[in-house]
């Protein structure tokens, strides 16, 4: 578990105190009775339980200012997924709320910094939350018929050394690669950069489920 210990190795816990705080006291998650379609004007969803993570978000955006007034969520995920989503919900709604433009500029690293860091192999958990936020922003623009503002997800670089994107992995799976090794034969992803392998395996599973059930 060495890579799951805190960065400074001073804490015996695997997560920082801020992560712990958000994990044990998650902010802004949505209760059963609160899921009211009329109250929220955009919804985002990412992941699947097969990947070990699923995240749904509900946003209430002020139509005049396009600021995020409410950001509510639910996640099936580990400690980092819960903490980073909770932190993101605070970040986008504090000080009167971010505008959708500002929220779009938010990066997973910003959330990780506010959390006081995450263990290396848990970084992908915070990316999930970023994606759900982007999905919800697009959903708002779709509902308000501002189609020019919808940004289709550009391909995301998974392995910055081999310059392999999620789209490359999707293509490899569609071409019949079933395992990490087969995807590596097609893309060279993660060879010499094993830190991205958890994310790659997750994507392989995600695309396999998406296209082949």
């Amino acid at each position, binding site marked *: 578990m060495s890579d799951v210990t805190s960065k400074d190795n001073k804490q015996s816990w695997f997560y920082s105190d801020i992560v712990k705080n958000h994990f044990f006291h998650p902010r802004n998650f949505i209760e059963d009775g609160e899921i009211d379609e009329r109250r929220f004007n955009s919804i985002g969803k990412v992941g699947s339980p097969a990947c*070990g993570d699923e995240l749904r978000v509900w946003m209430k955006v002020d139509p005049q200012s396009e600021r995020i007034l409410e950001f509510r969520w639910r996640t099936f995920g580990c400690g980092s997924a819960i903490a980073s989503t909770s932190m993101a919900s605070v970040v986008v709604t504090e000080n009167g709320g971010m505008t959708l433009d500002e929220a779009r500029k938010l990066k997973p690293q910003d959330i990780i910094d506010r959390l006081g860091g995450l263990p290396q192999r848990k970084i992908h958990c915070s990316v999930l939350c970023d994606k759900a936020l982007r999905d919800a922003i697009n959903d708002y623009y779709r509902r308000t018929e501002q189609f020019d503002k919808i940004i289709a997800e550009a391909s995301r670089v998974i392995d910055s050394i081999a310059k392999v994107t999620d789209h490359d992995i999707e293509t490899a799976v569609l071409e019949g690669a079933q395992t990490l090794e087969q995807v590596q034969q097609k893309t060279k992803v993660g060879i010499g950069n094993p830190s991205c392998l958890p994310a790659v395996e997750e994507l392989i599973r995600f695309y396999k489920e998406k296209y082949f059930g």
Partner: protein
Amino acid sequence: MGRKVYLDHAATTPLDPRVIEVMLPYLTEKYGNPSSFHTLGKQAKDDISESRSQIAEVLNVRSDEILFTSGGTESDNLAILGFARANQTNGKHLITTKIEHHAVLEAMIQLEKKEGFEVTYLKPDRDGLVSASQIADALRPDTIFVSVMYANNEIGTVQPIREIGNLVQKYRQEQKHTWPVFHTDACQASSFLDLDVERLHVDLLTLNGSKMYGPKGIGLLYVRRGIKLQPLQFGGSQERGLRSGTENVAGIIGMAKALTLAQRDKVNESKRLVQLRDKLINGILKSIPKTRLNGHPTTRLPNNGNISFMDIEGEALVLYLDAAGVFVSTGSACTSASLEPSHVILALGMPYEVAHGSIRFTLGHETTEKDIDYVLETLPPLVEKLRSISPVRVDEKYFA
């Protein structure tokens, strides 16, 4: 923090004070190297020889059939890699199960991917049991090795080792071959089950110290006389040249004591733990909706309860329980860099979300009824809280 309840005995057990007591002299004044040609060395040599005899008596084997290693992983590796490499002229097919410990699976994968062997991985039934007839169907003339764990480390299911051993032995006689040989990893079984090798009909058997209130960093491999192994480690020819390296004297002394105690007390301790285990399992299944027992309800280790909590992710629950002073573990989710959920639960035919929500509770010597009461009281609100923040609703067919 208030109460601390350690329910992770399948990961490791604390040292029994009686074991510490016999080990201490070897960490202090009796520090000789058994290979040394003087009094201190001879004393160490004689004492590990005595420990070897004690262990041989428990296993009902001869002393020279016991090899000391650094633990369960090395014993499994030596059995599999050592046997396959030394006997590959007889065939290159091996049989094992999908629910073995990684120490077995990864050694098999090594042979399969790098050394031209073929491996059949048998799928257990929904309760996690494999049968002797599955082995019979998988046997081929070029099968040289069969490995089935005695009891599973995650779900506690106890395999029919005696029947499988019997079958392999008969098959060998019919074929007039000296192969296949039968190996079992008995690490989880040592405190509860019969380890008489003659009755079990096994040819190789793995044990380690750290699951039976003995020390970590020590293990053994029983190797039936006449079986050839290729060593994995070379040097000063200790352990008949099969496992070079200065013997872990204190470890050996401690493991012999621990094994003797564990096997002596196994019947009473099993009886006590089965009651506590069933109280825990039934209590959880009754008080928390949408839960499922993984593994066979009765053909399982007396100390093991493995439960899937639907709709939540295991790691989150482990950390919530940790904060409440209850130490448990998820299957193997955190042990693998791939973040894969438990390969054992998946092999039972469960989907990813059920595997992700599995928690292993393993009881031990110091577990009391009060501990179980505390867990049963602590658990429901934590599960409820995590469920309230989860968007997932697992299909009823997996827990109803």
